């Protein structure tokens, strides 16, 4: 069990997301950087989609109320355990009474505090992710507050070898255009109904993640995307990554807590395999977009899976080697 010491807002319990309830108007939620979540769980020997705490604002401080193995993945934040530096993307055995402090990130924007076995909150509609709009899931359907206590499903001294880390996905799966982090995008239904000059500018330009960006959506700033003629679109299901363009032409990328449906014109969709890159892009930073095909998007998913499989294989080898 851990206790939240800091008064930081916006930290929530998330797993991979809540699927199968879109038909009730329930969006998927889930970790903004699912790779970081998967990595933390791999390091701890947890099920890959066990729930963790997603931390978007820093500093963030917790006290361990009992012995518990934990991992901190995602953003490389200035982390200390009882004042001793903890490297990024690392797993270790925590002891009762220790204080874990996560300071401002030097890279990335969201950190994941993963606990042995996963965070112990009830699953609602098949997931432990926090559904903020509906006020259910995670811890009582809300962001964490100072004083909250969260249990781990497997506290105590871990039998697994700990005290090692992993190379961040931002390094292992780096993708940049002209030095700027990039995400691949598949054109959507209304793509051809935007002006040619706007389309060209979308791929060629840098896009800034404005301060009005969060788990619901990222409001982007760049060359306005202008339609050939005004469009009224019927409401339809959407998924995270869909790039909607309201009047004015500044696009909003729907993120994990977005409405599961929408009716604004769609320019394209950031591919599922690259959503974690957006999830780690800090407010105020710039990104580029790369046009890709469906086959390339599917291959990118496979590339992510290969990375996780390889990490899993090396973790297993390391554990066997240490036991020897």
């Amino acid at each position, binding site marked *: 069990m851990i206790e939240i010491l800091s008064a930081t807002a916006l930290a929530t319990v998330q797993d991979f997301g809540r699927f199968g309830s879109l038909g009730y108007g329930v969006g998927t939620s889930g970790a903004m950087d699912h790779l970081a979540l998967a990595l933390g769980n791999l390091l701890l020997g947890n099920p890959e989609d066990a729930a963790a705490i997603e931390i978007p604002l820093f500093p963030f401080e917790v006290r361990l109320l009992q012995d518990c193995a934990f991992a901190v993945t995602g953003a490389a934040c200035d982390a200390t355990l009882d004042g001793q530096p903890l490297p990024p993307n690392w797993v270790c055995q925590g002891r009762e009474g220790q204080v874990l402090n996560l300071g401002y990130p030097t890279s990335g924007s969201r950190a994941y505090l993963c606990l042995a076995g996963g965070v112990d909150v009830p699953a609602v509609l098949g997931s432990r992710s926090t559904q903020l709009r509906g006020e259910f899931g995670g811890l009582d359907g809300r962001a964490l507050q100072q004083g909250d206590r969260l249990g781990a499903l497997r506290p105590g001294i871990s039998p697994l070898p700990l005290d090692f880390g992993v190379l961040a996905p931002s390094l292992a799966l780096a993708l940049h255009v002209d030095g700027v982090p990039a995400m691949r995008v598949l054109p959507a239904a209304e793509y051809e109904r935007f002006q040619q000059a706007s389309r060209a500018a979308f791929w060629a330009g840098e896009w800034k993640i404005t301060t009005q960006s969060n788990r619901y959506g990222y409001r982007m700033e760049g060359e306005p995307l202008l339609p050939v003629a005004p469009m009224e679109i019927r409401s339809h299901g959407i998924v995270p990554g869909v790039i909607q363009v309201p009047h004015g032409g500044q696009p909003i990328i729907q993120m994990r807590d977005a409405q599961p449906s929408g009716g604004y014109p769609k320019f394209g969709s950031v591919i599922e395999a690259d959503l974690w890159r957006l999830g780690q892009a800090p407010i105020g930073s710039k990104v580029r977009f790369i046009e890709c095909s469906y086959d390339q998007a599917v291959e990118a998913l496979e590339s992510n899976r290969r990375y996780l499989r390889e990490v899993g294989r*090396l973790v297993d080898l390391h554990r066997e080697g240490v036991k020897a």
Partner: protein
Amino acid sequence: MTLSEIRQLAQWLKEHHLAGAEFSRPGVQLTLRRGGEPVSVAAPAAVAVDGPVLRTTGLGRLLLTHPELREPFVAVGDQLCAGQLVAVLQVGELLLPQRSPTAARVIDIRVPCGTTVGYGEAFLGLEHQA
């Protein structure tokens, strides 16, 4: 142990002019020799302090700065505590800790960051307090 792992070990030996290595874990005993005298290696849990040096715990790339951080783990002149992290060994995507088992002062750093190392290579010179 897979064939590709054996190939990788052999490649490391070749590239870094190591004569050989012995590797064992449950169910596996592997000895690689390149001619000359075989070198037998252990995979100790902690960095071996052999006289006034720290030695690596295994094969990999020795990193003196964490890939995501700007400052190196330690600098010459630093006073280390027992258990302090002084470097990481990169093995594929894993980063394995190289920790000083005792309190000591860093006198010199003998291996450039990013060097591929074998088992038991001396990479840090230490001075124990009297």
